[in-house]
């Protein structure tokens, strides 16, 4: 929480320092909103969640850091995640400030954009890092479980993605004013709801920490005040916001509206799915579980629609594109069909996974279409950023679909000398050795994995920490060009040892895709900054992206 309020305060300070283009009244209102946010959360920190509260008696060797957190991932995942989460507070404050002074227009969008983009990039990195960290640290080979806390981080990201696109439309064309304001309020509200879900204990999760119903009540009160207040303000003021320029359904704006629509539906679905068990139990008294089967089934098709939209959307002209040049997407469409046909080479996989792989292949190609016909070195960095991000989405989709359908798992209690076969690999188990580290002892298994000529040594461990007493699995993973071999050693059964081996083709594309999405955003951010600096004269009309 200390990190949370630190970022909140720093963001407000930075906003005050560097924001020049907003009207003073709006800036004042914005900073006031940001300060009000800080007031509430600092009060919470001091009164209900004091990190400096004394522990009496003090444990002689400290309480011990949870062994799962004794890992470099701890240095990446929380800071980037929090910078992203809480960076969205500036977008929220800007929206509130603009509603107060009734100044919703392109200048607001231009002020908001770098904050949204920056927070979104960091949030993307944070979620991607968290997913990869859980994947290699936890030892069950999964990377996303639709756990309530995971959803709590995904929902602000979805809102921020929609906001990102909306803010671009508002900046370039002056349209989608109400949408942009609404999304800005929702994005940070989702951050706060996420904080609430993680710390209140109302939903069981492997990721919860600092759980305490008192804290939950506090954060709920803050939520009611801030989100309720902002939504009320929106309700009262939004009708006075002037409509922006009109546009045809088939146009860049139209495609972006469709994009935001789908993203919002995904967001709404994840929200409903996460909280449904609570609502259902409140009304019927029955406990139900809503887990991966539901979420995968409903978000899958929506993501496919989004992918299809991405083929043509970035190519449409602003305001109206009455005869869109569909010939350009012919090649990606053909690639999609071929990829779909190729998926039938694999053993039985679900239709959703097939479509996922097929559309990912097509989208990977289609994401480059906006560059067609341009002088590549003269193309603005913002366009490159868009291309890279959309490519990242295609790769992540491919990785996710592959992991869901092409993974091979082998579970066997092996004696030393046995050879197990998983996917294209032969894995020979030669035995175990005891091993010690600074605060743990472990049983280390020795495996040699061969495929063709390559032989790789893998040493998974089953570790016992003493403070706090815990047992963890340290998976041994090797990354090949086409996937990862993931190995885990379990307990002893007589003279045998439990081994779990997975062959996961294309799984690294998930996080590579995530990294590209973030990189694209970073490029766009830098491109924008460069462009803003070049805008010296008012006669220099801004070119739409």
């Amino acid at each position, binding site marked *: 929480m200390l990190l949370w309020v630190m970022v909140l305060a720093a963001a407000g300070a930075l906003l005050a320092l560097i924001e020049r283009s907003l009207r003073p009244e709006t800036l004042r209102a914005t900073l006031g909103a940001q300060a009000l946010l800080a007031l509430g959360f600092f009060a919470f920190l001091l009164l209900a969640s004091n990190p400096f509260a004394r522990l009496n008696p003090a444990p002689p060797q400290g309480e011990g850091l949870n062994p799962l957190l004794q890992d470099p991932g701890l240095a990446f995942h929380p800071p980037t995640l929090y910078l992203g989460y809480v960076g969205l507070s500036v977008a929220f404050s800007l929206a509130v400030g603009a509603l107060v002074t009734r100044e919703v227009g392109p200048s607001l969008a231009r002020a908001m954009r770098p904050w949204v983009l920056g927070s979104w990039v960091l949030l993307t990195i944070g979620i991607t890092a968290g997913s990869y960290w859980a994947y290699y640290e936890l030892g069950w080979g999964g990377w996303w479980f639709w756990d309530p806390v995971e959803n709590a981080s995904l929902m602000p990201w979805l809102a921020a993605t929609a906001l990102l696109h909306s803010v671009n439309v508002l900046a370039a064309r002056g349209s989608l004013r109400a949408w942009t304001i609404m999304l800005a309020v929702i994005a940070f509200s989702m951050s706060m709801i996420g904080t609430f879900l993680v710390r209140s204990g109302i939903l069981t999760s492997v990721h919860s920490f600092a759980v305490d119903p008192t804290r939950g009540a506090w954060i709920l009160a803050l939520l009611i005040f801030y989100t309720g207040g902002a939504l009320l303000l929106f309700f009262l003021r*939004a009708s006075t916001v002037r409509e922006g320029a009109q546009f045809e359904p088939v146009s860049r704006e139209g495609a972006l509206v469709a994009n935001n629509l789908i993203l919002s539906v995904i967001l709404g679905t994840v929200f409903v799915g996460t909280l449904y068990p609570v609502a259902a139990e409140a009304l019927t008294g029955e406990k139900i579980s809503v887990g991966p089967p539901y979420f995968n089934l409903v978000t899958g098709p929506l993501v496919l629609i989004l992918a299809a939209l991405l083929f043509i959307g970035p190519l449409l002209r602003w305001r109206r594109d009455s005869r869109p040049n569909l010939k350009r997407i012919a090649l990606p469409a053909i690639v999609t069909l071929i990829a779909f046909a190729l998926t039938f080479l694999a053993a039985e996989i679900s239709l959703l996974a097939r479509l996922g792989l097929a559309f990912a292949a097509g989208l990977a190609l289609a994401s480059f279409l906006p560059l067609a016909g341009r002088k590549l070195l003269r193309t603005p960095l913002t366009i490159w950023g868009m291309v890279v991000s959309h490519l990242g989405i295609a790769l992540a989709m491919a990785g996710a679909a592959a992991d869901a359908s092409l993974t091979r798992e082998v579970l066997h209690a092996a004696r030393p000398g046995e050879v197990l076969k998983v996917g294209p690999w032969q894995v020979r188990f030669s035995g175990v050795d005891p091993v010690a580290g600074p605060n743990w002892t472990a049983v280390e298994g020795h495996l040699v994995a061969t495929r063709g000529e390559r032989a790789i040594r893998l040493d998974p461990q089953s570790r016992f920490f003493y403070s706090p007493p815990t047992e963890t699995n340290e998976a041994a993973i090797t990354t090949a060009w086409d996937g990862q071999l993931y190995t885990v050693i379990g307990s002893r059964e007589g003279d045998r040892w439990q081994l779990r081996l997975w062959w996961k083709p294309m799984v690294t594309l998930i996080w590579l895709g995530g990294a590209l999405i973030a990189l694209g955003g970073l490029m766009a951010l830098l491109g924008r900054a460069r462009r803003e600096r070049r805008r010296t004269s008012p006669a220099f009309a801004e070119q739409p992206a």
Partner: protein
Amino acid sequence: MNRKLWLALPLIVFAAFVLAVGWRLSEPSDPTVRSRLVGEKVPAFALAPMLPGRPGLASADFAKGGPRLLNLFGSWCVPCIAEAPALLELEKRGVPIDAIALRDTPEDVARFLADHGDPFAAIGNDPVGEAKIALGSSGVPETFIVDRKGVIRFQHIGPIMPQDLARIMAEWEKVR
């Protein structure tokens, strides 16, 4: 007017959210896993005898004979030691008790009974938790009260502590 409705929608959704989570905060979720078979007949299972000279346990046994208690325990289970006096007390008051020993060996069970008392009539051997899951139990110790028709009428989760005896006796009276 219509536009106003749309603009109010987020606020309405938020209000519903606050109501739902507010309710959950005020009534924290009960983490105990209760069996859904309370009120149903004892499910089919058949367990071999745990100790020589002591009969095993099967679901068919519950339809004949009289009402009784069914206790799930393990010699390795620490809270089971805590509830041993209560079970002895119940048996003293004339309540027949059958048991299912989870993941146990005859030697360990014999030693447990010698150390902590033996209120059990029949003891079934459940090496992999099949009967436990069939009953809808999620751990040891647990105690079921079964009536003369073989219908489960009550489930007590956790060890039977002295303060629980009154409730158990009351439930027992209902089926006797």
